[in-house]
């Protein structure tokens, strides 16, 4: 099968759907709506109309979010069905990211109940319990009273290995952060393997997106954790995602075992991303009146904005480029998830009665 026959149908279908995506007017109207009820009512007649039906029946925003998650999973599965085996298995890796977040949510509930001794009551209903990629027994996760029981819920899945390097005691003392980072790293390893299995133009398209994406995430983590959490080099190693140019370079140069890992890492960032390094340096030069935390927060906002912009540019470029690669599929999911993220942020803002301005600020509008 040629690339054209592999992607002709999915390309036409997804482009048509991209054309039908909501314009900013809908989001603007949702933000302007004075209450959650009025904001969600704006979804009437849109392709997110099912969310409104759920809200009308239950009045429960978390139930709406669960429906949204179900819709997202359905979307991945549908597109997966249109693709030949290699890109379809890559899509399954992307779907695994949704599973990772779901697993983290389930473990957080378990942690809250067993370690923190907080009642979780009805909250388990908002965990997606059907199989996403791997057969995980979510009921067992939520109801586990011991760590081996929790481990048993993930038997035969890649999560089992990750969880087995932790214990009830380590989680009780260090919190869930190290475990969540380890699960994230597992997914990034799968992503890297998935990209490597892609061929030719597909691989190039996926690399151009995810390698730089991971680099920027690493810069973000370095900025966030080195200041806010004052991590030492050994912890820093655990935090950095083992993928992308920065991680590879750090490995090659032995940056993390040097006396001043942050300055070596800064050098690597400067070489690969001079623009962002310059902007961070500018903030540091001009932020005399800011505390370290303020300065750090500004840097994080800056990097996040840069990351968002870069992603948008990269996906737009993909939509304009070769139509017969996985690029259009990745761009479609980016746009869909961005749209879902926007709706989620607005509804959540309305639920917590945040002002229009603060919602716009969160959305970067």
């Amino acid at each position, binding site marked *: 099968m040629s690339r054209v026959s592999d992607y002709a149908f999915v390309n036409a279908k997804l482009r048509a759907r991209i054309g039908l995506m909501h314009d900013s007017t809908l989001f603007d*109207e949702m933000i*302007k*709506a*004075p*209450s*959650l*009820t*009025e904001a969600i*009512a*704006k979804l*009437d*007649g849109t392709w997110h109309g099912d969310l409104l039906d759920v*809200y*009308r*029946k*239950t*009045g*429960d*925003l978390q*139930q709406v979010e669960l429906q949204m998650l179900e819709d997202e999973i359905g979307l991945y599965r549908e597109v997966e069905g249109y693709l030949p085996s290699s890109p379809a298995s890559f899509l399954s890796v992307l779907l695994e990211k949704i599973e990772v977040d779901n697993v983290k949510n389930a473990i957080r509930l378990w942690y809250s*109940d*067993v370690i923190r001794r907080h*009642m*979780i*009551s*009805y909250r*388990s*209903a*908002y965990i997606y319990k059907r199989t996403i990629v791997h057969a995980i027994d979510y*009921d067992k996760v*939520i*109801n586990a*009273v011991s760590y081996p029981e929790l481990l048993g819920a993930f038997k035969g899945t890649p999560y089992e290995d990750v969880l087995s390097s932790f214990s009830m005691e380590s989680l009780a003392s260090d919190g869930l952060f190290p475990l969540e980072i380890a699960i994230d790293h597992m997914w990034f390893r799968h992503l890297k393997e998935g990209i490597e299995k892609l061929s030719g133009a597909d691989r190039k398209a996926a690399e151009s997106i995810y390698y730089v994406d991971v680099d920027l995430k690493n810069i973000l983590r370095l900025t966030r954790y080195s200041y806010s959490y004052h991590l030492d080099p050994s912890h820093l190693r655990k935090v950095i995602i083992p993928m992308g140019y920065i991680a590879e370079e750090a490995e090659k140069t032995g940056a993390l075992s040097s006396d001043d890992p942050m300055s070596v890492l800064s050098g690597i960032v400067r070489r690969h991303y001079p623009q962002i390094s310059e902007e961070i340096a500018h903030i540091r030069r001009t932020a005399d009146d800011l505390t370290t935390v303020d300065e750090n927060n500004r840097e994080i906002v800056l990097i996040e904005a840069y990351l968002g912009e870069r992603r948008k540019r990269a996906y737009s470029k993909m939509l304009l480029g070769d139509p017969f690669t996985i690029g259009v599929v990745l761009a479609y999911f980016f746009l869909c998830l961005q749209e879902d993220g926007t709706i989620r942020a607005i509804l959540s803002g309305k639920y917590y009665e945040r002002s229009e301005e603060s919602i716009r600020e969160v959305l970067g509008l």
Partner: protein
Amino acid sequence: MSMFTRRMRRLTAVVMESESDSVVKALLEKGVMEFVHIGALPADKMSKLSEHSAAVPKAALTDMRVRVETLMKEGGIALPELDGKAVEELSPLDMDGFRRTLDRLSLSLQSVRDDQRRINQEINSIEEIMRYAEESKDEYLDLRVGITTHGSSDDLLERLGKIGGVFIFSSKPFVSLTLRRDSARVTDAMDKFGWTESTDSDAQKSALSMAMSEAKAITEGYRADLDRLSAAAKEKILAMSGELSDIWKNVRIHELCEHVESFFSYTRNTTLFSGWVPEEESADVESIISHVTSGRCIIEWTEADEIPREEVPVEMTSPKILRPFERMVSNYSTPEYGSINPTPFTAVAYLCMFALMFADLGQGFILLLVGLIGKWLYGKNPTKKDGIISRYLCSLLIFLGPASMVGGLLFGSCFGFSLIPALWFNFDAVVEGEPVQGLIQDIYDILGITIKFGIVVIYLGLILNWINLVRKRRFVELVFDKNGIVGGILYGLGIWFAWGYVASGYKEFPSAPFFAPLLLVCLALILAKVPVEAAIERRKGKKEGIGHVLMSTVMDFLVEVLEIFSGLLSNTLSFMRVAGLGIAHASLMSAFYQIADMTGSTIPRILIMILGNVLVIVLEGLSAGIQSLRLNYYEFFTKYFTGHGMAFEPVGLRSRASAD
């Protein structure tokens, strides 16, 4: 109906500022004027005019209207019609009052939703227990049967209720079904009341089923509550439907007034405004303004001919019955002001094409039936959203069905069978290669018909273009352009030449004394186009270098000749798709007919023919519809439809809310 776009006139009026509100309302009620900014006055006079300043910004009015519409939609309330009475009874705008009313409603809706949320959480909590019991995941459950030795059972129930679960405390021994993960909390609560496990084995055995029945009853009760609350939310809105409609009317009229007034300019005591009005409405508009201002007004009319054509808004005046085809035209573009209204021609061409591609009496009848039923259903339920068979498709099917039926009568086809005698020739028989008497004997003859049909359509397009060019006084284009007279003659020569060649059995080219001279004259005219245009421009004072003119002449000549020969040839051959689709339609039906015959028994035969007809109606109907549209857009419209017009959008009480 006019053959051409509606004639327009531009009104410029000066009224006393004190009367401008009444004028706006009267004009809104009439709804025939598209307002434009006054920009034609000399700069020194313009500087003396001030712009409209809004008491309430239009954006705020729009936001308020959208808010009311959202709430009305949530309550299933249709938007009210605006009429003269609504304008007469218009009360002052009270944005704060409206906001308070809507906030009140919103708050009460939110409180219903909050109640729903709480109930939904209770349902989620109990359903988790029920699911574990149903799936025999007893290890996650904690079932206890016992009695308390001290304290009040109500107090214990209250404490357990906070943990969540199913509790039967109406008779002893008490039953408690909770989640195992809450065991410690349950034990803690029970210990305070001296809970003692029952030794009654029967009670222990029946406890789970009792608890499940109780859980089922509780969740059913909760679900009923959810439904009740869901209905209550709608009722709350419906209870305020009158108030909401009044707010909507008030805000909408003010929004429209604000929109109109945004085009106004002011002196100290007067208001100036301008706008386009259809010629036949101009007398009415003038008398309305005079009447409202008791004659204290100055009105001037500017004819559309005095203004550049592209600045004049365009309205097509097709009969209501041709609306589906008018939409087809508008989807393509808006015709230029003063040009021919393409709608009736599109209707005829589209229906002929469809009839030739989808000729079947029975299937056409089904299309008509679907169209009529759809129209009736949508008419019965005006708020119903468009489905796959949309309102527009229904109204189109009402035309396509009869067109297909006429085709069926001409070709003697009914549900794929030759049940009726063909009025023209038996299409199915020709496609199947059966011996047929008459002019049409094989598939090539069918292809020939569609090519002739294409030639008629293309010539019609060219003639319409010539009429448009005469009306626009573009005589150079009329003579020299590829879609002008020279193009038409060359196309005629090409047809004559091809016909002669085909008639000779593809053996020799035809010859005639007029051919070569006429061809050369036409080519010379095409070559002369750029120099003639340059000469005209020179007379207007625009000089172009001789080198540039020479270069343009050569390039333009080459492109034009190429476009005339290859373009018109491909346009003509493109009509063979009409025959192609017709043949495919007949072949598909014949295939289903043969498959049905293979079964040898009646019921499967009927079923296959029904399935075949359904498939052909859906797939072929869709293909024929799309191809007819394509032929209209690319082969017909490109000959005469420039699409440089700007649609006329008058502002009135019935203007679409989104239009402005």
